[in-house]
């Protein structure tokens, strides 16, 4: 008599797929973080280029004077 109830109870364990839940959120966050890191990297490279070119232009103006 308890059999079907126990079977249902075992089937209804809400934590049986928790590994997939964690994996899913980790995967989504990795994608998001990868994009943020990509944007930050591109921005840093452009800022470095700007600083370098400004310095070269400044030095060139000073030496021209």
């Amino acid at each position, binding site marked *: 008599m308890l059999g079907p109830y126990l079977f249902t109870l075992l089937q*209804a*364990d*809400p*934590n*049986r*797929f*928790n590994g*997939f*839940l964690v*994996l*899913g*959120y980790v*995967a*989504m966050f990795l*994608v*998001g973080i990868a*994009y943020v890191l990509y*944007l930050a990297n*591109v*921005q840093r490279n*452009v*800022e470095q*280029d*700007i600083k370098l*070119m*400004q310095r*070269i*232009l400044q030095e*060139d103006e000073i030496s021209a004077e």
Partner: protein
Amino acid sequence: MSRLSKTAPILNVTAIALIGLSLLMVFFYAPVEQNMGNVYRLIYFHVGTAWVASLTFLIALIGGIAYLRTGKRSWDTLSLASIEVGIIFITMTTAAGSIWGKPAWDTWWTWSPRLILMVVMWLVYIAYFILRSAVEDEQRRFRFAAIYAIAAFVTVIMCYGSIRVLRDIHPVVFGSALETAEGASQGEAQFFDGDAERASGLTLAMSSLAFTVLYAAWVVNRFRLRDLQDKATQLKLRLAARMSV
């Protein structure tokens, strides 16, 4: 400090806060789903990213139309940024959906109409960047990109509408579908009571709001990047002019 430089940090912090709040709601407020248990909590971010991705592609379409009408470069940048963020969101959607699909359908992937159209949509928008890099002349590049962004939206309509018209394993959770197009029952949510359903709806709304603000934050950051790249280009031209003297 430009307006973008002031807005970007505010949006960044707001987006992070909302994503954090959303996660708290997903794990501590949203109810347990009757059939699938806690793994159902993946759906809140899966659906949130999917909805906001469709919004980004719609905004890209609007940007394309506006660029063709006005010729203002900002509209092109809006389209570019929107499509870039949209691709990221679709990748997140697909990753979450695939991982959820393993316990739900016992497969990581299946070639159902919705999923095929999702891949097609993803590839079509990736090709947007290939097109941009293939056109050297700036004005032609912007024009072609605008037309492409408008035409590519067809794939969004096909992808999002397919489960309401074609028989598909992907469930129709919201709204209706043709009788012959009813999707799989695995994946349709069943909660214990009305309060639980309301909590689930609120969590989904919060997740969608969080990703919308995240989209806005990323677009503003992309505009800032464009401004920096323009500044670098101008400096390069000045340097080149100096060197040729």
